[in-house]
């Protein structure tokens, strides 16, 4: 059994520790909680929101299909007002055709044909944003069809093409290999102070 003289310093240390524990704790971020407040949910319940498509291989493309000819009808009913006839540019937006091959010129023309390395980007973007006043209202067939029409106007698929989850990822986009990862910092400025120029 320890003597009193041994116990006393232990108590003193414990008191100091207690005092420290009650002192204000300053920190940039509280420690991560050991338990959370999220409610378990099933992937099936998330399905109506699960609209993303991995455009490089088309994972997430739904069932359905649409032809260039059907797409022309859809386009003229739902898109032409803002984008103009044959996607050449309209009252609100510029052209969605041309520009392929412009990347090495002074004036680059940015269109789906030139700026989409993967064709399924069309499906993903049209579904989530178009038409601008009624997004997420087009059927899968309509979206495949209008995608086929736009790809055709860009000279990337023939007039009899049909787009679906199998054909769309196989369309070869001109700038498939035109994108490079971020390699900045790319400038090498130095801190000159006197007689710099």
């Amino acid at each position: 059994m320890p003597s009193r003289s041994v116990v006393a310093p232990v108590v003193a240390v414990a008191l100091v520790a207690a005092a420290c524990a009650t002192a204000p704790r300053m920190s940039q971020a509280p420690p991560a909680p050991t338990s959370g407040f999220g409610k378990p949910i099933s992937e099936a319940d998330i399905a109506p929101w699960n609209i993303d498509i991995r455009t490089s291989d088309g994972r997430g493309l739904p069932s359905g299909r649409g032809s260039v000819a059907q797409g022309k009808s859809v386009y003229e009913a739902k898109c032409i007002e803002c984008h103009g006839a044959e996607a050449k540019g309209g009252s609100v937006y510029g052209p969605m055709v041309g520009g392929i091959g412009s990347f090495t010129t002074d004036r680059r023309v940015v269109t789906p044909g030139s700026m989409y390395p993967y064709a399924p980007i069309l499906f993903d973007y049209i579904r989530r944003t178009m038409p601008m006043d009624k997004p997420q209202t087009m059927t899968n067939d309509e979206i495949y069809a209008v995608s086929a029409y736009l790809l055709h106007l860009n000279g990337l698929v023939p007039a009899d093409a049909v787009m679906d989850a199998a054909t769309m990822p196989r369309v070869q986009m001109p700038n498939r290999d035109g994108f490079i990862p971020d390699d900045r910092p790319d400038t090498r400025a130095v801190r000159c102070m006197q007689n710099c120029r």
Partner: protein
Amino acid sequence: MGPTGPERRPPAPRNEAFADTTSRSRRRFLRESVAMVGGALVASAAAPRVAGAAPLPIPESELKPGRAIPAAEYGMPSKFEAGVLRRRTDVFVNRQNLADWSMTPLQSQLGIVTPNGLFFERHHAGVADIDPRTHRLAVHGMVKQPLMFTIDDLLRYPSVSRFHFLECSGNTLADWLKAASTTVQQTHGLLSGAQWTGIPASWLLNEAGLQPGAKWVLFEGADGATHTRSIPLEKVLDDVLIAYGQNGEMLRPEQGYPVRALIPGWEGNVSVKWLRRIKVSDQPWYFRSETARYTDPMPGGKWRIFSFEMECKSVITRPSGGMKLPGSGVYEIQGFAWSGRGRITAVDVSVDGGKNWQEATLEHPVIDKMLTRFRYRWNWNGSPSVIASRAMDSTGYVQPTVEEIKRVRAISGFVQHHNGIFPWSVGANGEVKNAIA
């Protein structure tokens, strides 16, 4: 602490006359010039102090009670500040105002925090109007247990508050090679700073449990564009916030009410507003926003993709385009510096078009990935001058000139990530103009 290093208090004016004839009248001039739409100077603002002038009249405000306190209200700025507004672009003609932007009046901002009503906007399909009681945030994909959160759920966690700037990748894009904009609001106003409150995104991901192989995270908004971006998991676990608060109150609708992602130091559009979904995967998605919109043209027909970081940048906000100096004399050059890679370590100012530079004073606080204020006392001799600032950050990076950026990138057309040194010219008549060329 050296004379040019960060300091907590501005130096006291050297004498009464100095304070009176320069800083006070200059402040009055700047306020008036800012309040006026054209930024024209009221000539009388420059009137010198006259010794022995008429006795000061008793102000009317002292001769009657002021406005009574209403039972409840949301307070607004003085009516005399009515000209301090965020403004849409006056350089581009946007034929709709849904996928559009508005800019912060940086020339009027005091301190490093942008008031919520002046914080810049960039939307892809207008401002969503969301009831927080029905809003849900889902976390799923490569996780062990998909989870759903209400706003009340998020508010039950310990909160974290951090100061960070947000800058649109397109900030300054109209002014690469020739002057298109008049004011600093139009050249640099897609930039603001705020204190953000929320919880680390890592908490929600760890609660759901990451599966092996997880590398990328999708953030998706509940707006009419369901705006979506792919973010590397490493960044999300490092410092990304799921934010519901801004400058002491819940987010404004235009800032993503009731909840948004806040991705410190990275181009603004990745901080997805009206956040409804977080999905984990092993690869990026290559959305349209990631290939056709937020990419940078490079020599040889290539485009740089996933260029997330906003590099070190600075700009002089006073004096700046559209203002007019009332005459030669001492002026406190002021501005902002910021870096998406860290902390501002120094800012230099040139008053001779970039030939010679002097170190400016940084104002406390100097915060990682936040706006930092600098100042430099300039004795203008009244001859035409070109003033500019250059910032350095904690990685050792030095803000480049446009010429230096042009050497390594393709500056043509609609080009983003302009962090070049930005000059203003001061004419012999005191007029301050955009001098990019």
